[in-house]
């Protein structure tokens, strides 16, 4: 039984830690943070995204792939060799735990697109890589690419997030940003690929909530070449962000104004220039408005963004201490790793909080 065979609403917990100075820290803290919100998960999915963890391969795409069996692995590796220069590959180190069962084969590849193939495809590099990801995920049975960015990686499994973190030995990685998710799907077969984060290139999304506009969003995004294979709303959010950012060239603030657009009655009260911009985005991308409860943390190269739905139907708290920024579904999940905060607040619905690395940092 796999994701995609039926709908999958979820409750969940999210957490994120970001160092603006680019100082790298271990994955230990993010595990401690998400563990505080244990009750928000039910053991059917946990995962992490980590940025800045592969500095030795920072110019290569890091593919993390689940395989059902050795045959899927062979077929997939043949495909990878056809399309990429495989610079390095290995099994992702894990720790045997009784809590984590039905483990697939989990492999990591550092890749560079083959120049001749890339030129033949007449696409830019990002689009080439994404098309390869979709080719594997929809065409090779038993193979699933769940991470495909540079100098970042997703680690996810079926289980409680704190166990998933220990399983992947997350404390042995060092990065400038970590995000985490604990999943509470209420009627899911619970497959590893369905756990969060969902990632495409360096964008990753963890999501607490359930979007009611899923089908409208899916129909729109599938027109632009994305393939929604899992029927989980988070997958769609990831593709929408990729589409608006990479293909439409919108910045993150504009993306917030599309996916969590203010109500028309609120837009009407804004100053003229802002109103015109909001009206434009609301009209052009109306089918990419995400309706229903959500709080999300989006990770990307050099930054992190937190956003609530426009009605703020899910909780989300932001904390700051020196160069560190913390985001979590519950304040307690921040306090447990940083008791003494300079500032703590709940952003308004639709108000994206965007943090990026300071200039000159690593």
């Amino acid at each position, binding site marked *: 039984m796999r994701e995609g065979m039926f709908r999958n609403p979820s409750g969940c917990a999210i957490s994120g830690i970001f160092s603006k100075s680019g100082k790298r820290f271990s994955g230990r803290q993010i595990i401690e943070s998400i563990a*505080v*919100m244990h*009750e928000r998960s039910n053991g059917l999915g946990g995962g992490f995204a980590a940025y800045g963890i592969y500095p030795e391969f920072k110019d290569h795409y890091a593919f993390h792939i689940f395989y059902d069996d050795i045959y899927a692995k062979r077929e997939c590796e043949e495909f990878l060799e056809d399309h990429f220069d495989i610079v390095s590959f290995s099994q992702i180190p894990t720790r045997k735990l009784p809590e984590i069962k039905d483990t697939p084969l989990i492999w990591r590849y550092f890749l560079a697109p083959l120049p001749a193939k890339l030129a033949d495809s007449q696409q830019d590099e990002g689009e080439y890589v994404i098309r390869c990801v979709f080719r594997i995920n929809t065409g090779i049975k038993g193979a699933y690419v769940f991470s495909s960015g540079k100098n970042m990686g997703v680690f996810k499994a079926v289980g409680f997030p704190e166990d998933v973190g220990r399983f992947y030995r997350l404390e042995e990685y060092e990065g400038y940003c970590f995000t985490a998710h604990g999943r509470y799907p209420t009627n899911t077969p619970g497959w590893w690929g369905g756990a969060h984060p969902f990632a495409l290139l360096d964008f990753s999304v963890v999501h607490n909530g359930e979007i009611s506009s899923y089908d409208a969003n899916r129909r729109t995004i599938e027109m632009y070449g994305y393939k929604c294979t899992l029927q989980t709303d988070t997958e769609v959010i990831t593709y929408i962000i990729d589409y608006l950012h990479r293909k439409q060239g919108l910045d993150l603030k504009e993306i917030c104004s599309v996916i969590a657009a203010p*109500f028309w*009655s*609120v837009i009407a*009260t804004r100053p003229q220039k802002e109103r015109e911009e909001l009206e434009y985005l609301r009209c052009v991308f109306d089918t990419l408005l995400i309706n229903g409860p959500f709080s999300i943390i989006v990770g990307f190269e050099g930054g992190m963004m937190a956003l609530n739905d426009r*009605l*703020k139907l899910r*909780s989300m*708290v932001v904390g700051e201490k020196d160069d560190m920024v913390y985001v979590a579904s*519950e*304040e*307690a*999940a921040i*306090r*447990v790793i940083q008791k003494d905060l300079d500032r*703590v607040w*709940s952003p*308004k*619905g639709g108000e994206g909080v965007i943090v990026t690395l300071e200039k000159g940092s690593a």
Partner: protein
Amino acid sequence: MNVSARRLGSRILNDEIRRAEEDIIIEDCFGERYIGSCASSITITINGTPGNAMGAYLDGATIIVNGNVQDAVGDTMNDGKIIIHGNAGDALGYAMRGGKIYVKGDAGYRTGIHMKEYKDKRPVIVVGGSTGSFLGEYLAGGMIIVLGMESEACPVGDFTGTGMHGGLIFIRSSTPPANLPKQVTVSLADDLDMGSMNEYLMEYADTFGLSIDEILRKPFYRLAPNAKNPYKQLYTIY
């Protein structure tokens, strides 16, 4: 009696509170849920960040929090008092039907959503800072007071009182809230209104060591359900 919430965990902590016959001080609180739910007599003091649904169904006890609280504090609370020396999360006093909640700082979205009153049961929420949108959504009874002690602008978000069909909201502000729905009428609070708030404002000022004169320095706006409210015939018989 002193207990460590983190050491005991949510379930054992709440068992201890239910068995307690004397006041309790809870230390190291990191998101443990349902603290003091249904408690009827003792005083519970919490140092830390209690989890969601703190004081749910509270039935006469007092809870004092030295810190911020999360979501759904005082959910369906029946009686007693909750004092928060910090900020509150979303849905504070959700469906509350009696007792008092005093918040020193801000409160989140949907503060007092669907509060109600019946005979002598009349819930009261006083927020010292500002609140998020949908303040008093579907309000059916009781009183919500927002002081905006630190705000120049009106200290509430959008859509205040959406679906309101009973109760009163008072907002301390130089300007009335914008963007009010049709079911709500707004006017300056009169002497009668000020009288009905007096007991709570005095107690609030006393609790947090504020000057009552400072609180009364600005006008209060009174939000009430519109007498021509279309819901009136839908949901009430009189």
